[in-house]
């Protein structure tokens, strides 16, 4: 159970300030879901957490990522991008084994050299209902199946922290629900940050729900849905929360379009812990 804190994070692309002195806390062993309108800076924030930002002429950033145990986060978080980003020339199984391959001392290790990991990967694929498709190439899989392979690859790494950027965005409603359940079950006890556009997904899966808004972006105070995730869909409180969040998101987008800084509105304070 690893707490993650991001302190005083600032980032600018050229002259565009995406966020300024932003603080974010991810409680250990909990799911944090983050909402926010398109272009507000969610992907930027998660990439910064994953250590994928590099200072360049156009990108300037600052900020401290610290973990509860005092050690660096680098190398201890799994990252699942918005697209499944499977390697198209590798079979589903090889994609799940990618991490092992890339860390292996010898470059051209055969599958037998990885027999132990291979077995583990097969178990994961089986649990996700992909055992028959292990030898297929990504272009022979459906979008939902590809997303499940990407999930298997993320799980294969067995990291304490998992960062997911809209992992289920491109799926139909039913597949999405099934994947949400699988992910919730298999990532139980990890520290998870999940970015999503879907308020229902956020209130179903999150121990806390955050909203990023404004320019530069700030975090609204965390919303804590009742009960434990994954919450049943027929819970009326869930639907009420979803409605509330949708209304809030719509209001923010109207304010953004009018060029108002939503941070100036009195009802929103910064969510400092």
């Amino acid at each position, binding site marked *: 159970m690893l707490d993650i804190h991001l302190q005083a994070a600032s980032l600018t692309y050229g002259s565009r300030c995406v966020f300024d002195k932003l603080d974010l806390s991810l409680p250990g062993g909990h799911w944090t879901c983050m909402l926010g309108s398109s272009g507000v800076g969610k992907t930027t924030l998660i*990439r910064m957490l*994953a*250590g*994928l930002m590099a200072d360049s002429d156009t990108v300037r950033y600052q900020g401290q990522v610290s973990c509860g145990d005092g050690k660096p986060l680098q*190398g201890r*978080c*799994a*990252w699942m*991008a918005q*697209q499944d*980003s499977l*390697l*198209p*020339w590798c079979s589903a199984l090889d994609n799940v084994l*990618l*991490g092992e*391959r*890339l*860390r*292996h001392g010898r*470059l051209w290790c055969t599958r037998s050299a990885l027999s132990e990991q291979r077995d583990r990967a097969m178990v994961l694929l089986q649990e996700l209902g992909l055992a028959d498709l292990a030898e297929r*190439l*990504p*272009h022979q899989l459906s979008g939902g199946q590809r997303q499940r392979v990407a999930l298997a690859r993320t799980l294969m*790494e067995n990291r304490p922290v998992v960062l997911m950027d809209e992992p289920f965005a491109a799926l139909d409603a039913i597949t999405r629900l099934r994947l949400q359940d699988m992910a919730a079950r298999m990532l139980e006890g990890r520290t998870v940050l999940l970015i999503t556009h879907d308020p229902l997904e956020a209130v179903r899966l999150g121990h806390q729900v955050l909203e990023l808004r404004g320019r530069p972006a700030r975090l609204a105070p965390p919303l804590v849905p009742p009960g434990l995730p994954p919450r049943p869909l027929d819970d009326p409180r869930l639907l009420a929360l979803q409605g509330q969040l949708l209304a809030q998101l719509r209001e923010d987008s109207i304010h953004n379009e009018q060029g108002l800084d939503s941070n100036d509105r009195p009802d929103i304070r910064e969510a400092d812990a």
Partner: protein
Amino acid sequence: MKGWSRPLLAITGLLLLWQLVVTGLSVPEYILPAPVAVLARLYTDAGLLWSHALVTLAEMLMALVLGVGLGLVTALCLLSCTRLRIWLLPLLLLTQAMPLFALAPLLMLWLGYGMASKVAAAVLMVFFPVTNSFYDGLRHTNRDWLDLASTLNARSRATLMLVRCPAALPSLASGLRTAVVIVPIGAVAGEWVGSSAGLGYLMMQANARLWVDLLFAALFLLALCTVALYYLTDWWLRRLISWHKPS
């Protein structure tokens, strides 16, 4: 079979037209021989033509192996050594800026009358498109894959070999197709400058003696070799990168 019928029809039609023009306008043999005469030459001098074609084909294949190898290594060097890049790139351009027909005599002077000078000339043709296309592919690896590799704590060598190189294959493939088509230019140019065998040599000899039908027969064989090589390469590349679905 349907894919082959149209080109075959087009070629037959063209040959027919050619035959008609030659017989209809009674063009002299030493200006433009009739296709029938060329075909007859191909048949009667098959042994001679084939022995020379083998020499040129060998030169082309050797140049392809060496040129592609050199191109791949150069592209990898360009990618991995930033300091080398600023020196290597202008040098590469220099080799391409000098016309091959000016370099060929020099190559013969240095490497002798034999095959080596022809292979070298063809390598000069081949390696640049290979280097260029592979380097381009290596530089434009999908950002997501590289980010993924970095969050997987990949070794940088492993990222290069397991992610960057395969990702560059579609780009490299277009370079290879170009290479296969232009490699005869190098080999034949080398043979023209000075040689005792090869289709280029045969063409020079035939031209000097006004055996235009033999010249055409040699030309036909050269084209046949190139086209066959192209389709073979294309077939192999398609199989190799069957995962790549152009949008």
